[in-house]
């Protein structure tokens, strides 16, 4: 958890800068000082900073209706209401300066609000805090008092288990769903304070939590609620003795555990695991998927080709892949609270469309579309590794796509020369099979296709080769269809290859050669040391000998360092799916390590004999 900078750390002049702290006596003090720090002379004008950086979304009047606001959901904060989600104060309380600074610094993940810590100076950001407070008369009241959160309880298995019980007791599932994916029965009817549709947070993506995803931050939200949203405070039930404060910490631990330990790392290459003694999975529940590595691919709204979409529901998909040398199995999983079209969500989709109203020609006019997933590949591997345009290709480099839709069984292959131009291939040329499952707010779609379909229209996949791959996803119940959905950029799919025999033969050979090389070094050192012994009457010769000792040791250490570097390269290669790269770096690393050790041993022998 990031530690907040101390507001007072900047010294007394900052205290003066804050209008709340300007008192008559401090003004007198400032006026009577013989010199004033230049900071105070160039006092930051929060209004200027605000109008330059914030007004585009939040509006010059602070009402959250700036020129860009219409393309955002959730809408930018309306500062005139003094309704703040991220606080250390009770529900209905005002945020402290530190609370406001935290949001300015870190932004609001999962919304359009970026962090400003690296963009604006600390003085600018502090001035903004003060300026934001001028939008509401509520800040003229007494300064807010933060709640006492106490200390986090230890994260034990018992705490997690207790947290799971509390999740049921306080009925978090009402909105967040049993598995936390925001698919609870009340989720489709949620509105924020301004009446805009709002989603229940997907608790399996803690990197997108408003106010932070660590245990302390989750606990804070449970205590304070997120004012202006449907998320209530749970402080009252602790006060009423329904649950204990420790229970609330346990709940925070449990919720934290619903997400991965670390925010998923985005990797360029998805490796398809080679299955040699297990059959290729034909269902989404196959045990192979429990073992296979999952790769996270982030998605963003399609905002390039009109009609655009600024409110994608699917913010990322998890991809797992396996092959058996003949067929590829690709499992794509993503959070989506409903199986569109779902009548319970129809109204939500309508409200989203009304709210977003991008005004582009051809915008979706009604919800009720199906969920959809498109996996893109180039139609063939183009020269110079050039990839098609990432939005379903272009005229020169068409994309070859697999399309799955929630209201149709299976999937189909198409050739596309741009967004919305996908032409389904003839029935005789359909080779991809798909099965799908929707459970607990998550879609899992499994595609299976022969590596080589025998058709010139389809991309042929070769073992040991990386092919470009990209994803697009639509949530029909979120008002998405046509061009209005979520898209990814290009990634690679690498089909793991069987290890060649040479890999097993070469290492011993290389080792033997290196050993021989090492012995030669040692022999050289011995010869050298013999010469030195004959001439050791001279002190100068001794000095030369010492220099040679140091040089020998130095070379050895450098070689060992290079060996370590090779090891790092090797690991990176394996992880990226480049098995060959990883292997050869390992060999080079081994050679260097032996050479380095040889040099050190040789020098040691040299040193011993020279005495």
């Amino acid at each position, binding site marked *: 958890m990031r530690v907040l900078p101390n507001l007072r750390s900047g010294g007394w002049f900052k205290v003066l800068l804050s209008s709340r702290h300007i008192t008559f006596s401090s003004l007198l003090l400032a006026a009577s000082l013989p010199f004033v720090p230049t900071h105070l002379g160039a006092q930051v004008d929060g209004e200027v900073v605000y109008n330059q950086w914030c007004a585009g979304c939040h509006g010059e009047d602070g009402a959250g209706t700036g020129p860009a606001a219409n393309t955002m959901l959730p809408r930018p904060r309306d500062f005139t209401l003094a309704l703040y989600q991220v606080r250390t104060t009770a529900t209905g309380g005002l945020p402290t300066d530190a609370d406001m600074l935290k949001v300015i610094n870190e932004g609001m993940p999962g919304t359009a609000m970026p962090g400003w810590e690296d963009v604006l100076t600390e003085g600018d950001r502090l001035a903004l805090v003060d300026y934001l407070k001028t939008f509401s008369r*509520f800040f003229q009241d007494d300064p807010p008092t933060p709640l006492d959160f106490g200390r986090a309880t230890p994260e034990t298995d018992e705490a997690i288990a207790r947290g799971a019980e509390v999740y049921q007791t*306080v009925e978090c599932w009402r909105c967040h769903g049993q598995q936390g994916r925001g698919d609870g029965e009340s989720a489709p009817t949620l509105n924020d304070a301004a009446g805009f549709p709002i989603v229940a947070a997907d608790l399996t993506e803690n990197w997108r939590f408003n106010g932070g995803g660590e245990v302390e931050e989750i606990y804070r939200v449970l205590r304070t609620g997120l004012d*202006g949203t*449907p998320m*209530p*405070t749970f402080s*009252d039930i602790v006060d009423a003795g329904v649950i204990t404060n420790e229970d609330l910490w346990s709940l925070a631990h449990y919720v934290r555990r619903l997400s991965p330990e670390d925010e998923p790392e985005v990797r360029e290459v998805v490796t398809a695991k080679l299955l040699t003694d297990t059959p290729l999975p034909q269902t989404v529940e196959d045990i192979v998927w429990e073992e296979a590595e999952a790769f996270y691919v982030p998605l963003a709204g399609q905002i390039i080709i009109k009609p655009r979409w600024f409110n994608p529901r699917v913010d990322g998909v998890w991809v797992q892949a396996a092959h058996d040398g003949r067929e590829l199995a690709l499992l794509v999983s993503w959070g989506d609270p409903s199986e569109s079209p779902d009548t319970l969500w129809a109204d939500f989709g309508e409200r989203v469309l009304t709210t977003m109203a991008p005004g582009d020609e051809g915008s979706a006019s009604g919800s009720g579309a199906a969920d959809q997933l498109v996996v893109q590949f180039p139609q063939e591997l183009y020269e110079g590794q050039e990839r098609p345009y990432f939005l379903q290709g272009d005229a020169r480099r068409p994309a070859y796509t697999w399309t799955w839709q929630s209201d149709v069984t299976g999937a189909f292959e198409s050739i596309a020369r741009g967004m919305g131009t996908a032409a389904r291939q003839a029935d005789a040329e359909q080779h991809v099979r798909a099965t799908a499952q929707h459970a607990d707010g998550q879609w899992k779609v499994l595609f299976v296709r022969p590596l080589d379909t025998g058709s010139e229209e389809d991309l042929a996949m070769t073992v040991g080769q990386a092919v470009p791959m990209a994803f697009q996803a639509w949530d029909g119940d979120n008002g998405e269809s046509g061009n209005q959905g979520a898209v990814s950029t290009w990634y690679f799919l690498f089909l793991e290859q069987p290890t060649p025999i040479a890999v097993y033969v070469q290492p011993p050979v290389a080792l033997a050669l290196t050993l021989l090389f090492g012995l030669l070094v040692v022999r050289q050192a011995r010869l050298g040391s013999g010469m030195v012994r004959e001439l050791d009457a001279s002190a100068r010769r001794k000095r030369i000998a010492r220099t040679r000792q140091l040089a020998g040791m130095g070379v050895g250490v450098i070689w060992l360092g290079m060996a370590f570097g090779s090891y790092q390269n090797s690991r990176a290669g394996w992880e990226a799916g480049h098995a060959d790269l990883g292997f050869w770096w390992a060999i080079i690393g081994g050679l260097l390590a032996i050479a380095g050790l040889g040099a050190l041993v040789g020098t040691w022998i040299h040193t011993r004999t020279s005495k």
Partner: protein
Amino acid sequence: MIERFGELRNTALLVSMFVIAGCGGGDGGGGGASAGAADAAPAESPVDAATAGNVAGMVTFSGTAPMMAEINMNSEAVCAAKHSTTPTEESFVGGENGGLANVFVYVKQGLESLTFPTPASAVVLNQDGCTYRPHVLGVQVGQDITIRNSDGLMHNINASPTENRPFNVSQPVNMETNRSFSTAEVMVPVRCDVHGWMSSWIGVVDHPYFTVSGPDGSVALDGLPPGDYVIEAWHEQFGTMTSNVTVATGETAEISFEFTEAMAGASVPMGEPIDLLHPDGHRTVDH
């Protein structure tokens, strides 16, 4: 069942107290329990009962009554079982003889020179059968509102005033929570995000002269000091109407508010500050 009857009886009592006894002096704000009326009389009332007069009248509706959508409570068996007939939305509740219920009637202007003590008793907002009881209620500034969960399942109480600070509290089990508002505000919307159909309105005023009409549409404000007043009637669908009355000692001034079909969909003022000092505080219905 008995408990439920008890709640209904309390609600009925509350309503009847408003209607029959009005909200004069110590009875202001009423109470959740029948004993509340007797206890709550504050000693330092600024009004001389001997010289006081009353206001009484009717709130009616003319035209075709809007259809109220049925609420599907199938997902909440506990709540559905508490309703003998299919529950409907409550943004319009009419009664016999054109009476209009759930209209918040209060003195908007004329009491500027007086300050009133805060009643010690609390007003109860009950969640029963996944419905707020009452649907519209009044409370004095600073007076406690006891929010009660009688359903034993998750409710959240999300109040979104603009002149007061908001709150959003969870009640996953049968329990009570107290909250109050520090500034006069007509009206404060309250909703439950878990059950999207649940809504309630709280009128916050800084004196005890307010009431909520029952199905018969009758309203009364008793024990007002003699003088000229502006009385406002607020309805969640039809907006507000005002009426000027003169109260004389020992007499009852007549008021009458007739809301019409044409006023439906009015931009209903809520969260507006009640500017008692403003001479032209009258607010009209848009559209």
